[in-house]
């Protein structure tokens, strides 16, 4: 049985209190907000940019932007989504400045993803769980930034697709397609490398 999600209205009420404390300039309120959401912000940015120094700098930038525009938070949705949206947009702008595409343009570059996945990988002994995971971790790391981030938000943060659509500004149908194709491709890589479904 899955754990039941926390009461949404209670979460939003707690969020509003925290936001009001920050806006009122109450000592330590902003630091608490950062502490509460730093993990989420870090995960999104790290998945997008894959560079530790950039992640730290961009994560700080995201929180400074959160503080700057916190008065715009209306409390209609969870603060978590709102902060995730800021973190995503900061990371996306960083990638755009560096001309790194956020998502693949079209179907069919699965081979590029699969190529090199086996580099330094002993295929003959790749039957243990750890090795299968290592193979897939490499393949996940090679996914485009948007796909990597969607996998993280959906599976690790357990965000529904509608919420991820609000965070990324990408239509829900497109996200579902990205998620489906990423998982399918990872499974195909597994099959190709191991010769059969485990």
């Amino acid at each position, binding site marked *: *049985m*899955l754990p039941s999600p926390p009461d949404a209205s209670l979460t939003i009420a707690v969020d509003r209190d925290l936001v009001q404390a920050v806006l009122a*300039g109450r*000592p*330590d309120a*902003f*630091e*608490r907000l*950062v*502490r509460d959401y*730093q*993990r989420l912000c*870090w*995960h999104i940015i*790290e*998945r997008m940019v894959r560079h*530790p120094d950039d*992640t*730290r700098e961009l*994560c*700080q930038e995201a*929180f*400074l932007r959160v*503080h700057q525009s916190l008065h715009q938070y209306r409390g209609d949705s969870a603060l978590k989504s709102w902060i995730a949206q800021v973190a995503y947009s900061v990371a*996306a702008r960083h990638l*755009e400045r560096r001309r790194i595409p*956020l*998502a693949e*343009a*079209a*179907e069919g570059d699965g081979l590029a993803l699969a190529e090199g996945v086996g580099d330094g990988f002993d295929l003959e002994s790749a039957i243990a769980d750890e090795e*299968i*995971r290592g193979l*897939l*971790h490499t393949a*996940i790391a090679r996914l485009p930034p948007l796909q990597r981030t969607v*996998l*993280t938000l959906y*599976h*690790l943060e*357990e965000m529904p697709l509608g919420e991820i659509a609000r965070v990324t500004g*990408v*239509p829900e*149908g*497109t996200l*579902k*397609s*990205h*998620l*489906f*194709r990423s*998982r*399918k491709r*990872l*499974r195909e890589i*597994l*099959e190709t490398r191991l010769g059969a*479904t*485990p």
Partner: protein
Amino acid sequence: MNHPVPDPIDEREWLAQEQAMRAARARAADATGDGGYRAVVEAIVSMPLGAPPAGFAAAVSAERSRRARRDRRIAALGFGVLAMAVLVTGGAFSVPAWQALRAAIGGEASAWLSVIAGMAALTWACRQVLAMMAAGREGKAVG
């Protein structure tokens, strides 16, 4: 950014993916469903993720205070420059203008006008000082 129209997905395969995710979340002991997708889901959730360094929140908060102080200094400097410009410009044109005003509204009224202008200037200056003192207090508390 433009997002291409998504390709249609195979709903049966989508359900297999979702079932694998639910099984992994529930840590179901029986390995029913698609083993390949189960391995994929387990790999996704076990992917190593970094974490913010210790003291990250305090550092961000301190940086915010530092930037706020810097912005206030820049604003105060801007006001100062503006006030100087107004004084200099006013000085250049005030004597003939003041004489014309006195002649137009009379000596007593112009004296009261000076008092009102002086009080407005004093109020503005007090506000600036209080704002700067508050900024200093906030910087100490957060930073």
